[in-house]
């Protein structure tokens, strides 16, 4: 539920109402998790196409990218858990989220709080997130120029591949099917 609220708020911050559509995959996931996941895919692709961000190296753009990305992660988590009522410790984030409609930084703090309350950041996960931040920090001067969006995305893809490799080689779990 809180994922829907975050999606609406982050989309509002980005200047669109597409976030309201996040309620559809969430409702579908209550009926059946996999249908919700499929609807989430459609929503994510549509959301990505609705907001235009040319570079991650400007403060307002970074706020938009972070708030929308974190909201999408919380929404995915909501869809997979198929839970209606949020846990008590997640409610701490609510004031931050509500303030986030006017102050985007507060929204990001709220989203961070929700994720931390739900998922445990172990050493490997923290290290991988640090690698992502570091990669973009190191390449700041190299990839921050006009029309560099595809290059920045390529960096994201490279870091993504690294993250997947870490994921797959770290713990061996049996995976649930659709």
């Amino acid at each position, binding site marked *: 539920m809180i994922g829907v609220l975050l999606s609406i708020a982050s989309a509002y911050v980005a200047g669109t109402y597409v976030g309201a559509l996040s309620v559809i995959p969430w409702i579908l996931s209550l009926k059946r998790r996999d249908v919700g996941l499929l609807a989430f895919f459609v929503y994510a*692709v549509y959301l990505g*196409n609705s907001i235009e961000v040319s570079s991650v190296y400007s403060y307002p753009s970074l706020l938009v990218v972070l708030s929308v990305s*974190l909201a999408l992660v919380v929404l995915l988590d909501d869809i997979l858990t198929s839970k209606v009522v949020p846990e008590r410790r997640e409610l701490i984030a609510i004031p931050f989220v509500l303030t986030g409609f006017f102050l985007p930084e507060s929204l990001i703090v709220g989203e961070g709080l929700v994720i931390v309350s739900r998922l445990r950041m*172990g050493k490997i996960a923290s290290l991988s*997130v640090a690698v992502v931040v570091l990669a973009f920090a190191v390449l700041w001067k190299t990839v921050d120029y006009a029309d560099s*969006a595809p290059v920045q995305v390529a960096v994201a893809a490279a870091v993504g591949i690294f993250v997947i490799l870490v994921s797959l080689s770290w713990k061996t779990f049996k995976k*649930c099917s659709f």
Partner: protein
Amino acid sequence: MKREDFIFATGFLLILEGYLSANVLPGFLGLALLIYPLLLRSSTEFSVSASATFPEGPLEVGREYPIEIRVRNSGSTVRVIPRVLTRGMDVEVPSLMVPGNGEKTLLGRVRVLEKGEVSIEGITLTVEEPRGVYFDELTLEGAVFQAYPSLEELREEAMIEKNLRLAELYKAGRFLGLESIDFKDLREYQHGDDFRRIDWKASLRLGELIVREFLREDNVDVYIFLDNTREMRKGIKQAKIDYASTLVLQLASMLLDKYRVGLVVYDEVSAKLLPARKGQAQLEAIRRSLGIKHEGKVMSLRFELSTKIGPKARDFIGMVLPLMKGRKGSSGIFEALSLLKNPSFIILVTDLSNPRDVYRAVSEARKKHRVLILSPNPILFYSGKLDERTLERLYKAYEEREKLIRRFNVLVPTIDLGPSDYLREIARVM
């Protein structure tokens, strides 16, 4: 497709979308989705141990026993889904969420289905993290039990045996023919004898149950009544009327050696009589009277004896419907019975789909005639599509029918038949 793979695929598609549209946001959304499984893996730890407690001692068929699976979880929060492999047992254990560093007990029930050696061959516990992306499996050892028949099952079997013995006696012709009032002999009571025949004075004198036997008139007429109402003719692949016709023919061929056999075919409004005679020519005449076609329709499967229509409503329907007008509620079966002038032995072949009329008619008929009902069970003849709803409907109909057969058995011997019953009979005769 695995759920984790789907998340990865969505992430990469978003990155591709960002690259092609020169938009940073989809690329970062994709990256966030790729990081999510890493966070999930970081939060997931499967460390579950479990032990099962089974019911003790010999079990009874049909009874339910508790089963307990104690789960200790020293990892992260998980959902435990049990899967039990059994032989001769039905086990239901619900799934349960076990919090991290917690202990919970899954309470289930075991129902014994058959007697002899039954077992829980193994319990597989699927331990799934709450988001349903990863899982682990845990196997527990099963147990072997001895199951004994329950009292209810014994009663049921006794009833079946009694029915079968009755059918055997009818087949042997011991019940055919009317008994006269001339006393023949005294003999020991045997299982299945009518209580009204017990000679209490002789029983007291001899210290055991004694019954009176009367001389039998073997030259009595046997009339086979065949129900040709619409419900009997309904059926997708095979109708009850097809089965009943074969049964009638087979019965007639068996009885014609000793008795004069007649046939009465009745439907909703009328009845046709073939007077009782002996010999092969009669068998041929019966065969020709049985050329009845079935209708390719689904059976209604209703067996309620009581009607929800009140007497006033019935009078009204009697006045309005031309079919009923002037007939005062009498249907083909009443007309069929009115065609018999002398006391006879009636074998009524009907599916009891119109139980009210049949019950009334048989109640009247047994005052003058001896009656035996052979009833093809419509549930066993159902040949439509089987889905969950139909099965539920069939089960309800089966229960309703059981009650009905019990009610009729109080009145006259009623034998329930299935589609394969006559094949055995025919094989024996041949």
